[in-house]
């Protein structure tokens, strides 16, 4: 199945794209998609632990299952925020 990935700010510039299309396996979770993205884009890997992941415009834990057509957004930290405010921020996510 296919999901769309939105990139913003520093990450958008580092990757050089505003959106990416990602083909993931049927039972993929957010963590799986992120791992795939990190393999394909070193800039995403280098932001590991700093990003908040939104699924269809809502913060979501990395264990969330994906569905065809889902929209992921990789959100760098905002200027006035502390990491603590980024609920669900995958600081120590395991990439498998």
């Amino acid at each position, binding site marked *: 199945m296919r999901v769309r990935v*939105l990139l*913003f*700010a*520093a990450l*958008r*510039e580092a990757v050089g794209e505003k959106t990416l299309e990602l083909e993931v396996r049927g039972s993929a979770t957010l963590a799986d998609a992120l791992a795939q993205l990190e393999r394909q884009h070193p800039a995403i890997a280098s932001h590991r632990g*700093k990003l908040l992941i*939104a699924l269809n*415009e*809502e913060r979501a834990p990395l264990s969330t299952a994906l569905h065809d057509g889902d929209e992921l*957004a990789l*959100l*760098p*930290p*905002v*200027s*006035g*925020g*502390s990491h603590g*405010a980024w609920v669900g921020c995958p600081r120590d996510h395991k990439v498998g």
Partner: protein
Amino acid sequence: VTIRSQGAPWVDSAPLSLDALLREVAGPEMGGVVTFTGVVRNHARGEAIDHLEYEAFAPMAEKEMRKIVDGVHERWPHVRIAMSHRVGRLAIGEAAVMIAAAAPHRAEAFEACRFAIDRLKATVPIWKKEFAKSGSYWVEENP
């Protein structure tokens, strides 16, 4: 980017209007209105700033701002609050964010306005890029 068909926009590439926000919160029972305006300043980290750019994930920013409004209503049921954030290129002195909070009595209006700007800066997906003489960079940490 303008998302809100009537009233003050949540996120807008056009200059913000405090009047539009004041109209949203006005009411005959409101004895105090507190406003906050965040303005682009000419320095950061000891460097002169030429201008800024703001980038938003607009639909999620709107959702997060609505959550702040809900949070205000939970804490201060009699407060009415409205907010707008600018995106795009901003010059020194231009308003980047505006909030208006109205309450029957001033104490709640002050508290709610402070709460809202602090939450907004921490939770709303809007990013700031500073353009200084030495280069440009996205601001990712709270100084």
